[in-house]
């Protein structure tokens, strides 16, 4: 029986090539689109080189200060708060602090040719929390950091532009008119790695005014389950800090996980609501992204069913009951959906492969080197694909079975006439 249905379904697909193509491609594109939305989201939170421990990382870069006199400041994380409350943390496996990314004027020692690059001032732990692929030299050490010696790690991009292919390590460049010795060269980093990306990395202690800078703090938890314990320890330190000077109250906004950091949580009081609202928003987006193509597709399955009213009449006249008719329609739609789903799988995969490098790198050289990718599984979640695929089938089938059900209840004579 199903063999005959299958044969007929294929015949109908072949007969109505345009409609079939549109509904198959429609299903495929709907799946691909959602996979891309998911992927763009995922690339911000998945473990990618050099941010290979995003799943265990927590960040903090905002704080509130309330003064007894009535003033209230919302500010970036200041050094004092960092030093008192965050750098002493014991729970995390590792911690690091980085000054907010700034522009720096850079030129080769003695050269008048100046360029502006993005500078990140950080510490030695930074190189342990993130995994940078070095092409030359090495990172700065704890000794370098503690002594505040002017050393720099540069990206391949700068190495190419300033040293034009010659060896960079050991040379000196001027950063904001201060000479820095090049210690190492790393591959270019995607801007999407917002906590590690830069063109130049120096120890923040090498800048005399570092205690006046704004910081971004990262804690690498030993395990995801430690997040709450880390938060707890931050609160304890904060309490101690607040006890020293009761004229003001510090309220650190965080630390938050990588995905929570994407939410722009403005104060620790809003955090819970923001996270909930965001979950709702994401679900809504997914539902809309699924329903719009489904509505479009349903008009195709509707028109396909309408064309077959007389067939439904014939089948009923010769002994089909409601269930067998609906079963047939569901089965046929399943075939279309399966073909569309298979195509969607291939398209999503192609999209993942081709967009992966685009999303992760910002220069052609990285694309060509090819070593900079990350495992496909970080992007392409089979379970998400399956969920979307099943939803597509469900919507497809629903859109066909409703008219089929109505047709099956129609007096046979009317069905035969149409």
């Amino acid at each position, binding site marked *: 029986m199903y*063999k005959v249905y299958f044969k007929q379904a294929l015949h109908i697909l072949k007969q109505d090539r345009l409609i079939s193509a549109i509904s198959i491609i429609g299903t495929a594109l709907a799946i691909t689109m959602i996979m891309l939305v998911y992927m763009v989201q995922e690339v911000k939170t998945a473990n990618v080189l050099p941010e290979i421990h995003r799943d265990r990382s927590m960040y903090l870069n905002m704080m509130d200060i309330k003064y007894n006199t009535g003033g209230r400041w919302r500010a970036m994380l200041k050094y004092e708060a960092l030093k008192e409350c965050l750098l002493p943390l014991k729970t995390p496996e590792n911690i690091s602090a980085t000054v907010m990314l700034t522009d720096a004027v850079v030129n080769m020692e003695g050269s008048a040719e100046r360029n502006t690059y993005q500078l990140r001032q950080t510490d030695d732990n930074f190189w342990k929390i993130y995994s940078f692929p070095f092409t030359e030299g090495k990172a700065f050490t704890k000794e370098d950091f503690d002594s505040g010696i002017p050393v720099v790690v540069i990206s391949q991009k700068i190495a190419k532009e300033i040293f034009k292919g010659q060896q960079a390590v050991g040379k000196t460049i001027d950063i904001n008119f201060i000479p820095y010795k090049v210690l190492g060269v790393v591959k270019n980093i995607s801007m999407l790695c917002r906590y590690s990306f830069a063109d130049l990395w120096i120890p923040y202690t090498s800048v005399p005014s570092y205690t006046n800078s704004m910081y971004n703090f990262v804690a690498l938890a030993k395990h995801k389950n430690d997040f709450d314990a880390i938060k707890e320890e931050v609160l304890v330190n904060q309490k101690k800090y607040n006890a020293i000077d009761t004229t003001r109250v510090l309220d650190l906004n965080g630390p938050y996980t990588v995905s929570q950091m994407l939410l722009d949580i403005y104060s620790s009081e809003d955090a819970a609501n923001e996270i909930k609202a965001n979950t709702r928003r994401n679900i809504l987006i997914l539902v809309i992204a699924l329903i719009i193509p489904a509505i479009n597709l349903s008009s195709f399955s509707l028109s396909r069913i309408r064309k077959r009213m007389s067939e439904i009449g*014939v089948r009923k006249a*010769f*002994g089909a009951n409601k269930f067998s008719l609906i079963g047939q329609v569901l089965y046929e739609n399943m075939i279309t959906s399966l073909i569309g789903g298979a195509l969607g799988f291939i398209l999503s995969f192609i999209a993942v492969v081709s967009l992966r490098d685009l999303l992760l790198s910002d220069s052609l050289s990285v694309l060509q080197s090819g070593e900079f990718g990350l495992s496909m599984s970080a992007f392409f979640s089979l379970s998400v694909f399956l969920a979307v695929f099943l939803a597509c089938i469900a919507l497809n089938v629903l859109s066909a079975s409703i008219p089929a059900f109505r047709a099956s209840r129609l007096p046979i*004579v009317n069905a035969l006439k149409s």
Partner: protein
Amino acid sequence: MQIISLENISKVYSTKEIETLALENVNLEVNKGDFLSVMGPSGCGKSTMLNIMGLLDIPTGGRVNINRVDTTNMKDKAMAEFRNKTLGFVFQSFHLVNSLNVLDNVELPLLYRKMSGSERTRRAKEVLEKVGLVHRTKHFPSQLSGGQCQRVAIARALVGNPEIILADEPTGNLDSKMGAEIMDLLFQLNNEGATIVMVTHDEHIAKKTKCIVRFFDGRRVQ
């Protein structure tokens, strides 16, 4: 022996503007082995009567008994089974399924029975042989002439071995030569024991059948 009886059948079609009384108090009995012609002017209710007889349409009033079974309150499933086992239809416009080839069209009624695929095919080929189309099994309806289509439709009506064949102007869309072929086939089937009720406009054809009933304006007049 009585095989079909219509008791006080009436049928009203109501649309928004108008109510049409298509059948009014129709009583009719058909005996086993009959070949009955139904005649009357266009719009007098012949098709309506045949459809009600074949359980394709529901009367507004009255009762349809087939094989002495009252079909009035039958459920969808039972009704479907009844149509499948007892009745076979031949329509003026053939009503073949365009996306199925000849063999699959003929097998269609058997899909709704518990039967193996090979048995279905065997039976379908058997009736196709009877209507002289066994060499066309892989063709699609669009590749056949009108007469051939109607022969496929007759094969489909026969394949389930129904006791009753209902035909609504089976020769209406065919030229006289093809029409004659189809009629020969129906006479042969009747000789083999099938009960046939046929709507026709053709007085010559009707005269050859065992019995004629006439309708006028929704009523049986003879």
